[in-house]
């Protein structure tokens, strides 16, 4: 069975979800629950750190597809960071780099939330 965990952290107003393991149709509902909980508690600035994510399928990408508009409408965003090459390649195949803020480091994403004008 696919192994998957999420560690949740906070940096001031930014919520950080650190994904570990393999994200597929079996484990995607776990990520979805975390994101819907954050939206319900009006936390709209989310960074997802992929440094310990070994694998992703389109079921995992689907979670980001389903909630990004809701977050942006509320003035927030989901920023994606620290992807391994094989994980980035899946996002790239579907054209996500033009739709999502994908950054090398978590600190860059936090900075971008804190000083949005500086990133332009």
């Amino acid at each position, binding site marked *: 069975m696919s192994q998957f965990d999420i560690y949740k952290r906070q940096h001031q107003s930014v919520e950080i979800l650190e994904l570990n393991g393999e994200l597929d149709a079996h484990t995607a509902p776990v990520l979805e629950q975390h994101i819907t909980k954050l939206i319900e508690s009006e936390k709209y600035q989310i960074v997802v750190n992929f440094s310990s994510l070994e694998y992703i399928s389109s079921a995992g990408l689907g979670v980001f597809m*389903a909630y990004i508009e809701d977050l942006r409408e509320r003035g927030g965003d989901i920023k994606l960071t620290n992807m391994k090459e094989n994980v980035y390649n899946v996002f790239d195949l579907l054209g996500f780099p033009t739709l999502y803020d994908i950054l090398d480091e978590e600190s860059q994403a936090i900075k971008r939330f804190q000083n949005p004008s500086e990133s332009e």
Partner: protein
Amino acid sequence: MDVAASTGNLQSVRDFVANHARNHGFSGQDTEEIRLAVDEAMTNIIKHAYGYDESKKIYISVGSDDDTFWVAIQDTGHAFDISTYTTPDVPERVKQRQKGGVGVYLIKRLMDKVEYSTRNEHNEIKMIKKL
């Protein structure tokens, strides 16, 4: 191999196929592409052919010819009609808050050839990659 049509079996099936791919000499990236294509095909069967009925079975076989490696996945559920397939508009799907719907597109991008067939109530997707 055959497994119950459960998302809990996705990892063991994609690992099984990826190991075979690696043993056939595929690079790391090619192996990852085959692993993902298998996952997407099996997820579609669980979701669309069987409607998450875990009592149903999925049959997986792998093999190779002179210059190709293939993975065939069979089910006995609702057949997928490839003639209804259109390339997904990902930005539009994001705007519509649609979760996914991109599995078939990924399979086609990841593999060199994809064939769908139905015979004696068995549907098969055969995914082929050049060695």
